[in-house]
């Protein structure tokens, strides 16, 4: 171990963290909790309007897209059934079997 390493080791050994407790830390925390409990819903939303607005817009957009996709899927399934029904009326081969 060279001299610089020895010095660093000594400095680290001598280093002590002296954490000073914040004055009124605990009462301040409880005061914030009580304030939050008393806060009305409108005040809560007003305080976080941007976040909730973005969240709501995204949720509405996703729900709209899902609704549209479901409506399209339903329409496709019904159209498929209609094509089969339509061809059944047009196809003598099927009608011959049905009338048989």
């Amino acid at each position, binding site marked *: 171990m060279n001299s610089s390493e020895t010095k660093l080791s000594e400095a680290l050994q001598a280093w002590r963290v002296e954490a000073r407790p914040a004055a009124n830390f605990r009462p301040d925390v409880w005061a914030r909790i009580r304030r939050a409990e008393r806060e009305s819903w409108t005040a809560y*939303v007003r305080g976080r309007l941007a976040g909730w607005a973005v969240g709501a817009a995204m949720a509405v957009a996703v729900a709209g897209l899902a*609704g549209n996709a479901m409506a399209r899927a339903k329409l496709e399934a*019904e159209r498929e059934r209609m094509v089969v029904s339509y061809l*059944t009326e*047009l196809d003598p081969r099927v009608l*011959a*079997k*049905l*009338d048989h």
Partner: protein
Amino acid sequence: MKNRSISLALVLAVAAAAGVVVYRNSGDAALERALAEGDAMAWLRADFGLTEEQFDAIKTLHDDYSVVCAEHCLEIQKASLALERLKTREGVAAETVAAAERRLEELRAVCESAIATHVRRCAAMMSAEAGERYLALVLPKIKDFDHQAPPDLGVNRHRH
């Protein structure tokens, strides 16, 4: 915590309502009614945006085709019955059965060709885009349709 839950519930309720509104209003009311009622002509009119003239022309084509369809149907029934009889009869030459089978297959092929010609004529009455879409929906299903379609479809089929 309570406020966050209320907000979340409200956002979810609004989103669900938006989803339902979009789902209900996404389609074409006339098309949905035609599909729900199983009305093929109303479906053609709504789905392919037919004008009155186009609709009338296609209806005439369908009416004319139904005569041809009835003739084909009868021919197939006769050929099919003849084949069944030959198969159940004893001592019938294999060539005779094979000839009856060929006759039935020929009639099926004639039918397939007649349907394809008919739907192409219908498509020609529509706008170019609608005609293409109609053919894309219908043409691929025509080949061997009688082997694909369920035999007991409860659709409003016409009787010959």
